[in-house]
């Protein structure tokens, strides 16, 4: 199994992404700039029609507060639609599987999960979701949440180049994100997935007669198109509960690599979209650099630990040396590096799709994944990940700016008390959103296994901690693909607490991002003087990387200590 040559496809894939990202990021940026671009002749009239229908116009630019309200209206309506659909799914179209109605708390959690781009599920798709929910309701949220995140990023970035206090029009940003990016790419990627062997059909089930006897029901549907938008928009929901570990959603090594590519595309391109919109290409590199450094180290560690021996096993006498790493929990159809790349990309891009059982991994590997959900920004989810990185940068620039003896400024805009307040709030609310419900769950006795007893083992901690971390980061990654087996998370408490954490983890940072963007937008742009800190530089890249890592460590070390470390202590 140990095959060093399999590292090559990992390296080649990252190389391809690195080569495409600057160009694709430029395209991504142009979507949000008021200038002609390819496709205008066909899409322009259609978009104009939609704007008229919505009663808005690209010329109507919104302030941060207006933008947020518009965003809440669209997301609120989507949430309501999903909630109603899930509660009434047996009475709605496409109900061939006979999935029962969801309990109101489960519907609450699911609607929140899909609207917030988390796609953490407390149900099993195959038995608890009707085909209508799977092909109509959920995909709607895949598009809405992905376009919301990207619109927020665009709006926040505009704050650096505008001087009128506005950030653009949310409806226009959303429509253009879908028409110019998500829809065309999702179609192309779906076709490629079909070519790679992913099913795309309206047949609901086929019955198989395996050699072992009996019958097996195989659920089918528009898997390729669902997977395509789910991964592209960093949602991460799977058509199947087993997500990308399912051979139908991810049939081959090639599809695995392609799906990895799709997940990386937006996150790794986002810095260049930023460079494009602020019209300073070079400013993209510090962020691209930060992302590559943190992601690269994470991937390296993860792969190294997948190849390393498990100390717990090594200590068992008579077991002999372990060869070929520690593949427990891995999908064996992929090599260790391929599986690792998919998993690290998925968690670090806030997709949350799984192709392995994270709960079975070595503690360090789990830590690596947790760290990605702590930063949420290397590269993080659709737009919001990069916006989060910008918030880190704003704080970093504030401290760094003081260190060079000037009132901190970035791209000609001063970093003042207001920006510091909101950026700090967004970054510092993350640990609180994880820890408070975590403690309430554990101390309040809400953690139950199926038998209903209260097993406060360290391993349970890790599972609960991982769940809330994933929900606060709007990631969606679960310790175990297809629902947690270590504790029962489909309870009213975890449904409601999880929903609250996801909504908080989504809309509080978004408000802060818009607020910070709005504050920058209200300022005049100062001309760059010679005394201005040159941000497009290696020093600044290293500085921002260190700042991000140290602040994250500072805030999350106790969390880390309580989770996997307590697992060590507890002997779990």
């Amino acid at each position, binding site marked *: 199994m140990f095959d060093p040559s399999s590292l090559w496809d990992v390296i080649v894939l990252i190389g391809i992404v690195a080569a495409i990202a600057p160009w694709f990021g430029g395209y991504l940026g142009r979507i949000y700039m008021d200038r002609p671009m390819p496709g205008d002749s066909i899409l322009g009239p259609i978009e104009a029609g939609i704007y008229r229908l919505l009663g808005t116009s690209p010329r109507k630019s919104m302030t941060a507060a207006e933008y947020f309200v518009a965003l809440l209206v669209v997301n609120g309506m989507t949430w309501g639609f999903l909630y109603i659909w899930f509660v009434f799914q047996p009475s709605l179209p496409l109900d061939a599987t006979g999935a029962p109605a969801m309990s109101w708390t489960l519907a609450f959690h699911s609607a929140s999960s899909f609207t917030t781009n988390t796609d953490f599920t407390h149900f099993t798709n195959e038995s608890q979701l009707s085909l209508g929910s799977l092909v109509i309701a959920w995909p709607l949220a895949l598009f809405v949440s992905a376009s919301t995140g990207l619109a927020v990023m665009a709006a926040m970035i505009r704050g650096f180049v505008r001087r009128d206090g506005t950030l653009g029009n949310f409806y226009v940003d959303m429509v253009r994100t879908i028409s110019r990016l998500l829809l065309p790419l999702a179609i192309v990627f779906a076709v490629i997935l079909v070519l790679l062997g992913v099913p795309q059909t309206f047949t609901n089930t086929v019955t198989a007669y395996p050699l072992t006897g009996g019958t097996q029901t195989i659920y089918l549907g528009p898997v390729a198109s669902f997977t395509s938008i789910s991964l592209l928009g960093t949602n991460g929901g799977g058509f199947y509960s087993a997500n990308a570990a399912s051979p139908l959603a991810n049939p081959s090594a090639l599809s695995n690599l392609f799906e990895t590519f799709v997940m990386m595309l937006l996150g790794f391109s986002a810095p260049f979209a930023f460079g494009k919109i602020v019209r300073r290409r070079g400013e993209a590199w510090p962020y691209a650099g930060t992302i590559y450094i943190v992601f690269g180290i994470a991937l390296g560690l993860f792969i190294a630990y997948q190849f390393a021996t498990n100390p717990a096993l090594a200590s068992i006498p008579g077991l002999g040396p372990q060869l070929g790493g520690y593949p427990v929990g891995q999908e064996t159809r992929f090599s260790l590096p391929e599986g690792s790349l998919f998993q690290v990309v998925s968690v670090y891009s806030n997709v949350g799709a799984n192709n392995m059982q994270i709960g079975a991994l070595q*503690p360090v590997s789990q830590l690596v994944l947790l760290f990605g959900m702590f930063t949420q920004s290397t590269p993080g989810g659709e737009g919001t990940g990069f916006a989060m990185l910008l918030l880190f940068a704003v704080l970093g620039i504030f*401290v760094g700016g003081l260190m060079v003896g000037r009132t901190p400024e970035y791209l*000609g805009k001063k970093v*003042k008390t207001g920006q510091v307040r909101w950026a700090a709030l967004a970054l510092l609310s993350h640990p609180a959103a994880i820890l408070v419900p975590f*403690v309430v769950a554990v101390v309040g006795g809400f953690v139950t296994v199926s038998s209903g007893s209260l097993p406060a083992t360290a391993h349970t901690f890790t599972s609960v901690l991982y769940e809330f971390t994933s929900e606060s980061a709007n990631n969606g990654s679960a310790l175990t693909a297809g629902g947690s087996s270590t504790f029962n998370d489909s309870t009213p408490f975890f449904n409601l607490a999880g929903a609250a954490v996801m909504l908080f983890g989504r809309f509080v940072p978004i408000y802060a991002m818009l607020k910070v963007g709005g504050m920058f937008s209200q300022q005049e742009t100062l001309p760059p003087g010679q*005394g201005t800190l040159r941000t497009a530089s290696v020093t600044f890249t290293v500085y921002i990387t260190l700042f991000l890592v140290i*602040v994250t460590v*500072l805030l999350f070390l*106790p969390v880390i200590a309580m989770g996997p470390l307590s697992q*060590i202590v507890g002997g779990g």
Partner: protein
Amino acid sequence: MADTGAHVPVRRVGHTSAIRVLSDSFRMFDPRVQVRYPVMFCVYVLFLFLVVLTLYPRAFPDIARTYDAGYYLWVTIILFLTLWFANISTAIAEAQGRARADSLREIRSGVRARQVLPDGTVRWIPSDVLHIGDTIQIRAGEPVPMDGDVIAGAVLIDESMMTGESAAVTRESGGDQTSVLGGTMVLQGSARVRVTAVSGGSFLDRLIRLVEGVGREPSPNELALIVLLSALTISLFVIVVTFLYLANFTDIIVISLATIVALFVCLMPTTIGALLPAIGISGINRTAKANIIAKSGKAVEAAGDLDVLILDKTGTITVGNRLAVKFIPGPGVSDAELLEVALLSSSLDDTPEGRSIVRLAAHRNATTRRLEKDKFKVLPFTAERKMSGIILPDGSEVFKGSIQAMEAYGAILPAALRNEAAAASKEGMTPLVISLQKKPLGLVLLKDVVKPGIRDRLRELKTMGIRTIMCTGDNRLTAAAIAHESGVDEFVAEAKPETKLLLVDREKSQGRLVAMSGDGTNDAPALARADVGLAMNSGTGAAKEAGNMVDLDNDPTKLIELVSIGKQLLITRGALTTFSITNDVAKYFAIIPAIFIASGAGALPGVSIMNVLGLTNPQYAVLAALLFNGLIIPCLIPLALIGVPFRPRSAIDLLRRNLLYYGFGGLVSAFVGIKLCYLFIVWLAAAPAVVGLGAGVGHYLPIGGL
């Protein structure tokens, strides 16, 4: 002139001040004082909480199983020290300001004023009942009772008690030199003065309040930093409290309240939080030490942000007077002959130009007959005549003057000299013709001399990314030559009084921060408009009112110094914040393993990896981290008061260096410091007799779990 007030009557923090600092540091335990700085207030509340816990552990039944009197006591003591060290840093900074304020206050106690009533009668009243607009009489030998403008008469005033400048200054009615300051001494003459300030509102009073730091508002950057530190503190509070709940819930790890308080205090940005007030006050102190009175801390910070300095040519870039630099004899005239006549023409000329001609001639070993003043007819220089000279007893006329004036008088230049003169003009020099009996003997070239060292200062400014604009009434040629020689980035020639205002507006409209200096009433609008307006103390009241800083030494070059002071202030804050944050990382590595070791899990691989410091006793480890956290504050007080060393460099270079020194340095020093503190505590626990506190110390030093 640029030397910063070595002769200023600032008392050093001496014996009595040390007691005052001490008493102040205890007075600052007043919660009303503590609440002003959120981070330290948090430590304060935790300290009170621990005091209660230590004294009445039964008040909190839950802690019974983890209560350990000795351990609680020590944590409480270290918390007290931490708060006290923070207070001391503020008290020292305030004492430095007060020392200067006190010396200023002495000047004014018990001064009486001679008020001139509208009917012309004069009466003595205490100076503090004067009103604005009252007229007072000042006389030689008496102190000026209150700030005002001279409306009649002229006086010679000693301002050294305010400015440290020993040369007396003239103040007379009309013009730009009318302003007198309360507290200065009249040396000669008498004058009527219209009072421009009332008691408590005079310049002196304002100055005293400023250096004492009364009513000091946090500046915008300081406020933003406080917001960041508070957010960090709140977030860490949530983290630490949940950590406590969780840990104690598991029964695997038991953490006492004292440990969790210690963890929280260690992680809070206490280093920067404790020193923040001192840094702000010392910023104002440093400006005061440079003999500049800033009207607000905001103005000092703004100085660090400046993009553009508008500098007057005269007095700032050049020494102020044109000086003779070269003699050019005409055709057929010997050097010696020219020198002798030049000397003759200027011996009785009291203008700086005249004196410089004498100096240059003397330097060239010129000699002349001894001149007795009353035997000559002296024609002094006037603006209309544009020439000056003497008429010897034998009637021969020795004159010097500008080419136009001399040709009008009859001394027509030969072509050779005319060419020399034109060439000199092109280089920014002013040629004067020297004539004997209307025969031009040659030229003496006058030059605006650039101040020594100004070139280097301007280069430093350029390194810091600050653009300099020279403003002068001279013609373009002269201005260009001086600009070239001094290295300013830009110049404006033939400037009119309103030019500065236009310049300030132009730069500000492009979003730049502008500083300028000035002393005249016509500078006032520009001073008010500029982000940093440095008014000269000798200037008019209007100028001083308009600017946000006043330079007591009347040295416009101080603008350059101000930039460094402002930058240093910001850098000190940034550096100590970084230091504080990287310190925290090391503290985690001391406390988290300690918690696991105390729970009997010290041998586990994850823990031993984290326990890089090899701290084996968990209670000592926590105390060591906490002790280091407290001790680092007094260690950094000098840095907070003096400011981090600052040399003009590019921004990126500064970032790199400060990251290395304070970021990496913070990390390393914390690891080393905590280890040393740990060894100290181990030693203290083992040898109670050594510290002379009796055997009891050993008893109170904890040995149990956490």
